[in-house]
């Protein structure tokens, strides 16, 4: 972790609760720093810092698991006009490697960045998409599972 621990930590915690993956699993993709930069770059330093601070405060109040934490995330982040669209984007970014252009209503209020366009963040991002693991498959054209693998039930060893 080369980034300031202070910001990366809440980003990682937020990503974990939003995606339903463990922190180590997210670290294992090698994408944490890149996605962190992506968010900061598109939504700006000030807004992202606010989001990390809010996350850190929630964690301080309600810990990192359990219903209390989830409820706080839903109320204070997903339901927030400012943070909700970013949080939903963070989920989709982890799941597919795609950054989606933020809704126009959000852009009108909080500003537009030239990088706020719908696109695949990088080859690597596509290949680390988590949605494929969620459905017990693999990203098409990456992480090939080997001859005849498709004729078996997925191993499920990881779950």
């Amino acid at each position, binding site marked *: 972790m*080369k980034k300031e621990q202070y910001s990366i930590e809440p980003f990682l915690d937020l990503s974990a609760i939003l995606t339903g993956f*463990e922190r*180590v699993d997210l670290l294992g993709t090698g994408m944490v720093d890149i996605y962190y930069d992506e968010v900061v770059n598109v939504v700006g330093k000030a807004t992202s810092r606010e989001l990390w601070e809010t996350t850190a405060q929630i964690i301080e109040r309600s810990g990192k698991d359990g219903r209390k934490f989830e409820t706080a995330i839903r109320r204070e982040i997903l339901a927030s006009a400012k943070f909700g669209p970013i949080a939903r984007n963070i989920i989709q970014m982890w799941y597919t490697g795609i950054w989606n252009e933020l809704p126009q209503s959000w852009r009108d209020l909080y500003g537009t960045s030239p990088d706020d366009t719908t696109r695949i963040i990088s080859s690597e991002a596509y290949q680390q998409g988590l949605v494929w693991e969620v459905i017990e498959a693999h990203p098409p054209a990456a992480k090939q599972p080997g001859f005849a693998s498709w004729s078996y039930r997925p191993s499920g*060893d990881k779950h």
Partner: protein
Amino acid sequence: MTIIKPLIIANRHRLVREGRPRIPEAARIKTLPSLRRHLQTAIELEHSTIPPYLCALYSIEEGDNLPSSEIIQSVVVEEMLHMILASNVLNAIGGQPSINHPRFIPEYPTFLPHSDKSFEVGLQKFSKPTIDTFLRIELPAKPKAPPEANRYHTIGQFYEAIEDGLIRLSEEKNIFTGDRARQITTEYYYGGGGGVIPVHDLDSALKALSEIVGQGEGVYHTIFDGDHKLFGEKIEYAHYFRFNEIHEERYYTKRDTPKSGPTGKRLPVNWDGVYDMRPNPKMKDYPKGTELRKKIYDFNRIYVSLLDDLHRAFNGEPKQLLNAVVRMYDVKYQAIELMKIPVNEEGMTAGPSFEYVPPKG
């Protein structure tokens, strides 16, 4: 002195010895059970190099060091072939390979099984010292080093003792009484040089062994100071020379001899394009209950299931090899994930620990 001649068959370089091995009386394998034990050791020996090779391979960042990755990968695939071949020989003489017992995986760092304990092999990231170790593993025998049945300076000597045992014992009676259905046949092996040889008599057994040593470190000393023309495009060299290309960061050319070393085109190596895996990772490095401990445990579970698949494949269910290959990919992806997880301030990362963990439940 035995007479050695280099042989290139279908683009694969082989060193074959004429005549039979000469083993001092004391070092001979004299009974069938002892021969079986030695073949079981052979399987363990071939396996013991795989985790270290895999660690080096998977520590290379994706897309970097392609030539080196390709070389290590090709060696790993052939080590697996060697496990298959050794199992075929063992099955042919009525033995039962045991692949999934708790002590099958050595505890790294380790001396190679039955070696003379002159060096240790560990789980390390791709680096120059790591390649040094690999060279020692695949080291050809020194001149005048006779085969020994218990303390082997090189893998080649060990196999020569087995070869001698096979020949001697089958002169006494037919030892090839194993069930043919237990042999792994050609259709399940692909993706690398060489081929599976089903074993049912002395001839096929010796072929299988020479495939192992010919591919491995090229058992015979002459290659060190010999001046045979062994190299050239599209020829697959013994493992030692392949690793040596990485070590010297240069390819061999047609004109090269073992003595000259590689003098060809540069083989680009980026020693920094590597995850900084903390050497010899262990589950116990991380407190129980932590996510990381669990993740390494999960890795080991998959690795052990892979060994289970192999065990079944070598014990009458050859089709299980298909499963093993699928599991092998899982092992790879899980190992790479671990390689990316930072574990300390210096940016070192976790890694696969290759420890035996019993099945759940």
